C-alpha cells in the first residue's frame, strides 16, 4: 500500500503543475497582443505567430514531413487558437492542415472570428475545431477553453484518468462551471462539454 502511494505522489506534480503551451495565430497586431495577455493571465505558456504559414513552420509541418531535429518535448503545443480571417492561409485552411496531419491532429484547435456566420461556425466544427469563439475574445472565454483542455489532457490514456480521479482537489480548474448562456458556448460542440 505504501509503495503504491509513493508512486502516486511521485507522479502527481507532472499533472498538477502542467502549464498549457498555446500557439496563437492572428494577423492583427492588436489581437495578438490581447490574446497573448489573456493566455498569460490564464497561466499558459504562449507562442504567438502572425500567419498560418508561420504556425505550420513552428509546428514543423511546413515541409509536410516530421522534422526530426525538433525537440518535440520543449515545443509541445497543447492548444492552437487561430483567427479565421487571415490573408494567405485562412484559419480554416490551417485547421484542415492540422487535422490532416497524423502527428498534430490530436491538438485541439479553437477558431476565433469577429463574424458570427453560422455556416462558418458549422464548417469549422465539422472540420474538427474544438470551439469557435466570437471576437473580441474575453478572459472568461479563454479561461473556459484552457480549463476544458486541461481536463481533456488529463483524460487521455488509462493511467492518467486514474490519477485524475484522486487528484481532483489539487487542480482548481476542474471545478469551473461552464456557462451555457454565453454566445460562444452556443457555437461549440455541446456534447464534448
Amino acid at each position, binding site marked *: 500500500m505504501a509503495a503504491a502511494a509513493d508512486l502516486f505522489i511521485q507522479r502527481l506534480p507532472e499533472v498538477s503543475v502542467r502549464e498549457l503551451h498555446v500557439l496563437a495565430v492572428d494577423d*492583427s*497586431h*492588436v*489581437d495578438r*497582443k*490581447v490574446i497573448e*495577455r*489573456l493566455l*498569460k*493571465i490564464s497561466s499558459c505558456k504562449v507562442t504567438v505567430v502572425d500567419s498560418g504559414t508561420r504556425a505550420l513552420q513552428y509546428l514543423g509541418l511546413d515541409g509536410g514531413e516530421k522534422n526530426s531535429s525538433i525537440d518535440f518535448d520543449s515545443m509541445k503545443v497543447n492548444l492552437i487558437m487561430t483567427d479565421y*480571417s487571415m*490573408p494567405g492561409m485562412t484559419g480554416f485552411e490551417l485547421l484542415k492542415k492540422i487535422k490532416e496531419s497524423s502527428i498534430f491532429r490530436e491538438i485541439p484547435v479553437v477558431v476565433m472570428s*469577429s463574424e458570427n456566420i453560422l455556416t462558418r461556425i458549422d464548417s469549422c466544427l465539422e472540420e474538427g475545431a474544438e470551439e469557435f469563439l466570437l*471576437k*473580441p475574445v*474575453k*478572459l472568461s472565454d479563454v479561461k473556459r477553453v484552457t480549463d476544458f483542455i486541461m481536463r481533456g489532457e488529463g483524460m487521455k490514456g488509462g493511467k492518467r484518468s486514474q490519477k485524475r480521479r484522486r487528484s481532483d482537489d489539487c487542480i482548481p480548474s476542474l471545478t469551473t462551471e461552464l456557462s451555457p448562456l454565453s454566445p460562444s458556448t452556443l457555437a461549440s460542440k455541446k456534447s464534448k462539454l
Partner: protein
Amino acid sequence: MDVLQLQRKLREHQAAMLREGFLDDQFSQLQKLQDESSPDFVIEVVKMFFDDSEKLLHNMTRALGQVPVDFKQVDAHVHQYKGSSASVGAARVKNVCATFRNFCETQNLEGCVRCLQQLQQEYSLLKNNLQYLFRLQEEIQAAGGSIPTIE
C-alpha cells in the same frame, strides 16, 4: 491640482467616453488585464491601435483613389480596421466601419468616401480623448496616486 481632483477628472472623462460611445465595455475588459506584471498593457495596445489606424486609413485612401476602385480591396482594409477597433473597444470607429462595409458591398463610391471621412474624424476624436486620458493617468501616477478603472 491634487491627486483626488485628478482622479475625479479621470473618472469623469472615462465615464463621458463611455456615455458618448467612444469606448465600450471591451475597453474596460482591457483595463482589467492590466496589473503590476503588465502595467502599461492598455497604453501599449492603444498605441498599436493608433499605428494600425494610420496604416489602414492610408490604405483605404489609396484604394479609393484607384481607377477603377477595387471594392474588395477597400473592404479588406475596412474589415481589418473593424476588427482592431472592436478589440480595443473603439465603438464609434467600429460602427462606422460596419456602415463602410455595406457601401463596399454595394460598390457605392460616394458612400465609401463619406465613410472614410467619418472614420478619419472619429479616429482623430478618439485619439485626442485617449491621449488626454493617458496624460491624466500619468499625472496621477506621478503624484503617487492610483488609477481608477472604468466601472
